[in-house]
């Protein structure tokens, strides 16, 4: 074997976690994925199923980002930058749901106002 790329005392050495930690996270991810598949077999309405699956998916993503992608080992400033910036962008995308519901229930613009003259 050549000399290690990372000196044991260097800051990057923290990325060389024990393999056991990776296996534990891997098993946790498999279990969470299994829970998602289990939820799909339940007799739930779409909204309830979506909420449960989203919760599990966020937990899975959190584990993957923090430990597989080593974000937890980075500087706290970088962690906050990634989480806050990405989170804000993803939340900002949710503005259209009210319009989606309008498509579903047909209100208010797709319904003719009482007394309105049809063109």
């Amino acid at each position, binding site marked *: *074997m*050549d*000399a*290690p*790329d*990372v000196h044991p005392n260097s*800051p*990057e050495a923290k*990325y*060389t*976690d024990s*393999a056991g930690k*990776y*296996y534990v996270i*891997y098993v946790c*991810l*498999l279990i969470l*994925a299994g829970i*998602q*598949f289990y*939820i*799909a077999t339940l*007799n739930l309405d*779409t909204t309830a*199923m*979506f909420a449960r*699956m*989203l919760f*599990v*998916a966020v937990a*899975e*993503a959190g584990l*993957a*980002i923090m430990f*597989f*992608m080593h974000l937890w080992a*980075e*500087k706290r*400033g*970088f962690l906050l*930058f*990634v989480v806050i*910036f*990405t989170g804000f*962008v*993803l939340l900002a*995308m*949710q503005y*259209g*749901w009210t*319009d*989606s*519901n*309008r*498509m*579903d229930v047909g209100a208010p613009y797709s319904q003719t106002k009482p007394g309105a003259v049809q063109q």
Partner: protein
Amino acid sequence: MSQADMTMAAHSHHPPGMTVGLEPFVVPAKKMAMWLFIIADAATFAGCLVAYGFLRNGTPDWPRPFHSMTNAVLMTFILLTSSLTMLLGVRAAKAADRAGAFRWTMITMVLGIIFAALHIREWLALIDEGMTLSHNPWGSGLFGSAFFSITGLHLLHVTGGVIALLIIGLSWKAGHRTAEDLETAGLYWHFVDLVWMFVVPFVYLLNMAH
């Protein structure tokens, strides 16, 4: 030039006299570039998934064409396992285990190829049942465009990742890459896995026939 600047210049690869700023996040340039790409790509996938949700929520006759989750289970297992093998490859690279890092990287690549093959097989089965971008036998024609665009974008990322792993793996074996290069490729691969964690429940499992 301050003492701090001179110290930084002495330890960097920048030419003398070039002004370099502080590195507040202490993240290597390649890794930082990959993180910025991942953030942008996360927004791309989120945009696709939100648009899909928008249409699904607003379409009463949304199809539920999937009768079995076997393929999705298998694809998920393979992709999660490929993330583990990628981690083991990066770990071996950090420990200067050149052969081990190459072996794990190639295993990851093969798992990616198997995933892509399963994905394409599923596509062909759906096309065979009459699903196109604008039409399907089960309900709203919007399903085809949403399904093919989201899973197609993901498949494109997997294909790109497989090619990248092949190139980086071979050049790593030839001694032209560092452990940091493998780690950066690994970041991308984990992100592809991460996206799948959202595609499976929303595109597959919510559309299971009951």
